[in-house]
């Protein structure tokens, strides 16, 4: 039995006008870090809230360690640690008070479960008397994770835990998740950051309420049928317009220093020939190892 399993979960808002989730099915194995990767508004929060038994699905079903979040919501709430996207601790209580409070709420003993949160707590210790509202973004998230862990949950549901957090803290946060995984905790984490996808064991790409792909972060890009090229030139904007004008271009998007191009057919030389007359100066076009972003762009283009 899978630790988390969903079967065609569907949820609409505004009396059916907005579809947040459309028949979403996926499974998470015990003890893995499963990433929900998708842009804002893809339905990640809705999905996690349904699993956390906070929202009812319109149709479809889910199970967490065998419990249905609709019928057995009380049981589900005992085994999950949930961290909402927005910082949701008491800003007027100190770090220590927040921890103690959540330990009471979860009927847990801070001392018994201390080993689990020790790493995090050590980082927070210097600020333990500070009010939660005055912590930095990264510290807030660490405290929230601490609070979600005080009762030793089997499953962690984390909704965009690293959004708005500095890169160093993000890295530390992920190190912590990997350590928790080693303790056998199953972690479902959503993120809009593609680079965090590679830190997950498996990921699901989600967009507009549907799951596009599921698999390991390494295998998903390999499923792309077309090679991906990185293009760059002196005038990047002109290049982008010109590549998009090329009839055989499947997709072309900017990623950092270069544009990633996928071609419907033809060789890269044909594209270079097409560009020759339009772009002043040399154009570099190299085949690259595709990333998660390229899969997204491919799917987005294919759907429209």
């Amino acid at each position, binding site marked *: 039995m899978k630790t988390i399993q969903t079967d065609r979960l569907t949820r609409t808002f505004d009396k059916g006008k907005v579809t947040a989730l459309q028949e979403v099915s996926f499974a998470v194995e015990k003890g893995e870090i499963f990433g929900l990767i998708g842009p804002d508004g893809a339905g990640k929060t809705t999905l996690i809230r349904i699993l956390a038994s906070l929202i009812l699905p319109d149709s479809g079903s889910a199970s967490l360690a065998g419990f249905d979040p609709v019928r057995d919501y009380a049981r589900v*709430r005992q085994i999950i640690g949930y961290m909402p996207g927005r910082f*949701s601790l*008491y800003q007027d209580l100190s770090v220590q*008070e927040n921890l103690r409070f*959540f330990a009471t*709420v979860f*009927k847990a003993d801070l001392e018994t479960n201390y080993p689990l949160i020790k790493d995090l707590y050590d980082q927070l210790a210097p600020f333990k008397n500070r009010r939660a509202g005055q912590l930095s973004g990264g510290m807030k998230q660490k405290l929230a994770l601490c609070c979600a862990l005080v009762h030793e949950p089997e499953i962690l549901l984390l909704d965009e835990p690293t959004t708005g957090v500095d890169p160093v803290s993000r890295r530390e946060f992920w190190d912590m998740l990997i350590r928790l995984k080693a303790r056998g905790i199953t972690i479902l984490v959503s993120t809009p950051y593609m680079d965090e996808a590679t830190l997950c064991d498996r990921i699901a790409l989600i967009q507009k309420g549907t799951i596009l792909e599921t698999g390991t972060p390494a295998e998903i890009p390999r499923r792309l049928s077309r090679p991906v090229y990185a293009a760059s030139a002196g005038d990047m904007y002109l290049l982008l317009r010109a590549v998009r004008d090329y009839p055989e271009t499947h997709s072309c998007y900017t990623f950092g220093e270069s544009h990633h191009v996928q071609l419907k057919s033809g060789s890269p030389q044909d594209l270079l020939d097409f560009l020759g007359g339009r772009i002043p100066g040399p154009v570099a076009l190299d085949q690259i190892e595709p990333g998660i972003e390229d899969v997204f762009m491919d799917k987005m283009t294919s759907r429209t």
Partner: protein
Amino acid sequence: MTIKEFKHVLRDPRSLFFLLAQPVMLMLLFGFALSNEVKESRVAIIDQARDEETKKLTDRLDQSEYFDVMGHYADPSVVPALFEKGAARLAIVFPPHFANDLEHLNAGQIQVLADASDPNTAAIATSYASAIFGAYQDELLGLMKLPYKINIETRMLYNPQLVSAFSFVPGVMTLILTILCTMMTSVAIVREKELGTLEVLLASPMHPMQIVVSKAVPYLVLAMIDVAVILLLAVYVLGVPIRGSLFLLMAENTLYISNTLALGLLVSTITEKQQVAMFVSLVGFMLPALLFSGFMFPIENMPWPLQWISHAVPTRWYYRIVNAIMIKGLGLASIWKETLILAVMTLGLLVLAVKKFKVRLL
């Protein structure tokens, strides 16, 4: 959980001050500043007789604490000007030969003119004046033997001096409890919704009702403190008696506090924003509580649809109960009906609130 709620309340000194100082302020305000009694009304005397009798009557008026003679005038035509300036509230006109008429015709005429732009004050002031003249007449009559005489002996039971504090102490308790319990509890719960902390609490193993109950406890305690403060002030500062059983009074208070807490809980289940919760509590519950309790306006004078509405307002019943216990000194035997109505209402509200309370976000 409850400990945390107390911390929240204590960490916010402004609202704590508001919650504790408000009853004291309201009590003192109603007790000393806002009184139904009309004292030291300025009276203009237009004495066209200038005899022994009119002088005595004028002195009587001036000596009473209710009147203050502001001037003597010869002609009644000055009265409109005095009223317009607000220089006088009342004018007494003695016609020429007042004493003579009184002695020989057995009838002395006195004209009392009042500025009725404020009808209540005018009515009260004229009644005070009539009472003073009446008392004087009784003294005169006492000297003679009359064949027939009807003696009207009026006594105001329960509150012989018509001290207004008697009526507003129950009123202020009503007000404070409505504000404190209904508004503060609903706002406290809705605040958790706004902050997103309710989301975490709901996703925890704690029973949702437990969350709500522990949020209500600090306000229950505060409400009890406020009731104690109000009663202490009432008894020791304003001299309002508690004639009935203190235990019964506190029991009824607890019942009413539960009622207002249930209302607050109900408000919190139907609103998403703190401002909305506050608005609904104030307009939806505090205003009716004020208007229909009978504390400010007698319910009997209202048109029947409003009277009918007033039956649905818990405050109406609570106000009657408190009034009966404190001022009339009645026991449970005479207020069991009101108590029963209040208890049924409370139970109904609690059931409704619990049913409406969502164990999920949406």
